[in-house]
């Protein structure tokens, strides 16, 4: 197909779409339709069609069918457009990373330049530790803030909490890293896993708080009333009825927030730093997947590039596991709750 044909083809498609959008069948499909389009004929055609549309229910049904099919196709198309880059990234990471991925990559320490083999075992463990610390900080405070927003509808405090959470979610992660650097690293003169975990935990806060708020708002007031009417105190109603009912959704939010911070690199550069050894303590620098990937990727060595790809693959798999797993497990629970 040459270029002209291609363009014509696209124009033809465009035209057909226009017809559909105007709820008209293309001329060929309409026996009484004018073959040459002039404004006048088009107008009368439309008028007679309109009359048919509003007099006959069959015609109306047909137009509704076309419209709903068009809407459906547009949605399907957008889904494809949105999914393609994701799949491309995924396949490319698998294509590049699978070669270097093996058991020793998952379990071994990195080797110095020039030696072959070695892995990112310490970075994987380090990432899990950092995520753990982040969750210990981010989840309780996030859930508390979300609960405050959803349950205690005191306008002034909610305004402050919401503003803080909005600002925080807009702050670039590197700024959070510098903040924690100033707060912890400079104070204790020590890069540490704790500092890295705190930075990631702060980054989790707004997502967890917002999801918690939204999920708790989805719990109908009738359940709160049911609980209060039994003589169950307010705080008990919140913890045992509202949070329990919303737990599935809140957990999904926590998982998604975790998935998001799992790949954060910038805030770790100033806080957890990096390490070539297994983690030795929470008050010591610690390796993490994103930082290790970053270090290897900008190095001039081919073998390290391969390892960076393998590390990326592991990271992507962790993130996918977290988000898909949480959706599957908790999505079902949530549906039952509402």
């Amino acid at each position: 197909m040459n270029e002209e044909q291609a363009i014509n083809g696209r124009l033809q498609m465009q035209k057909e779409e226009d017809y559909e959008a105007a709820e008209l069948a293309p001329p060929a499909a309409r026996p009484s339709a004018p073959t040459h389009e002039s404004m006048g004929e088009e107008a009368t055609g439309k008028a007679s069609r309109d009359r048919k549309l509003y007099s006959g229910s069959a015609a109306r049904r047909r137009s509704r069918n076309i419209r709903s099919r068009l809407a459906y196709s547009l949605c399907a198309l957008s889904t494809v457009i949105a999914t393609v880059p994701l799949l491309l990234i995924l396949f490319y990471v698998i294509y590049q990373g699978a070669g270097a991925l093996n058991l020793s990559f998952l379990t071994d320490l990195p080797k110095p330049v020039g030696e072959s083999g070695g892995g990112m075992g310490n970075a994987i463990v380090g990432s899990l530790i950092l995520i753990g610390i982040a969750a210990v900080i981010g989840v309780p405070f996030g859930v508390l803030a979300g609960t405050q927003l959803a349950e205690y509808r005191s306008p002034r405090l909610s305004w402050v909490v919401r503003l803080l959470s909005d600002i925080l979610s807009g702050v670039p992660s590197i700024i959070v890293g510098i903040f924690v650097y100033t707060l912890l690293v400079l104070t204790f003169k020590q890069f540490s896993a704790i500092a890295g975990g705190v930075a990631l935990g702060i980054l989790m806060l707004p997502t967890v708080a917002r999801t918690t708020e939204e999920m708790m708002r989805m719990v109908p007031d009738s359940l709160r009333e049911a609980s209060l009417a039994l003589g169950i105190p307010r705080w008990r109603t919140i913890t045992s009825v509202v949070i329990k009912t919303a737990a599935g959704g809140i957990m999904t939010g926590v998982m998604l927030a975790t998935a998001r911070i799992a790949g954060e690199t910038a805030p770790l550069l100033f806080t957890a730093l990096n390490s070539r050894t297994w983690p030795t303590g929470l008050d010591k620098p610690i390796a993490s997947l994103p930082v290790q990937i970053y270090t290897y990727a900008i190095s001039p060595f081919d073998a390290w590039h391969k390892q960076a790809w393998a590390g990326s693959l592991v990271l992507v798999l962790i993130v996918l596991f977290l988000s898909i797993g949480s959706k599957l497990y908790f999505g079902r629970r949530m549906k039952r709750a509402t």
Partner: protein
Amino acid sequence: MAGYITTNNLGASFGGVQAIENITVEIPANKVTAIIGPSGCGKSTFLRCLNRMHELVPGTKISGEVIWDGRNIYASEMDATEVRRGIGMVFQKPNPFPLMSIEDNVSAGLRLAAGRMSKARIAEIIEHSLKLAALWDEVKNKLGRPGGSLSGGQQQRLCIARALAVQPDVILMDEPCSALDPASTQKIEDTIDKLKKDYTIVIVTHNMQQAARVSDFTGFMLAREMSDPGRMIEYGPTNKIFTMPDRKETENYITGRFG
């Protein structure tokens, strides 16, 4: 006697708009009292005043008194949770806890509000309450299933069992049958009949036949104009209200000439 409620000049307003006003009635213990009246006249508002359920809604003001066993439930030393434990409520739309099992729904009040209780005692109360609510036979083999899996009528009886389990003196019911089919309605009316020897029941209903069937006393409420607060127009033995009411408005409403 436990479960005797008197209201004194009771009023309620939402955000400055008076919804009910000037309600003074004596609700006798161990009887069924029905509240009837056209929709929007403040029946639910009145009922919810009787166990401090309005406190959830910001901007609500209650005036007057509700005396329950000699104590004003709105007095500063009264604890709202204690009031609600003694004066339970069943709502218009069945609202079981959807994720809790049937038995956990019934025992929720015991587990979350009362002090520690032995498992055996809780199981006993669960069975007793479900039997009182005429639901035991239908659910005894699936007590572990979620409360949301029952039919609408069963859910409402589950809510009644749940309210009974905390052993209140008074049970308030806000149009408990309005969302139910006739068979379920019948079962709930039978339950109400059984319950009244041990409980004081106040039931709001828009169904006058139901009021006539189940109640000993009836109060007729009315808001004269759309913007007027609702008042208790007439209150007395059901027989009298339905056969020879004192007030013209009551007679009009009962004979269906308005509303």
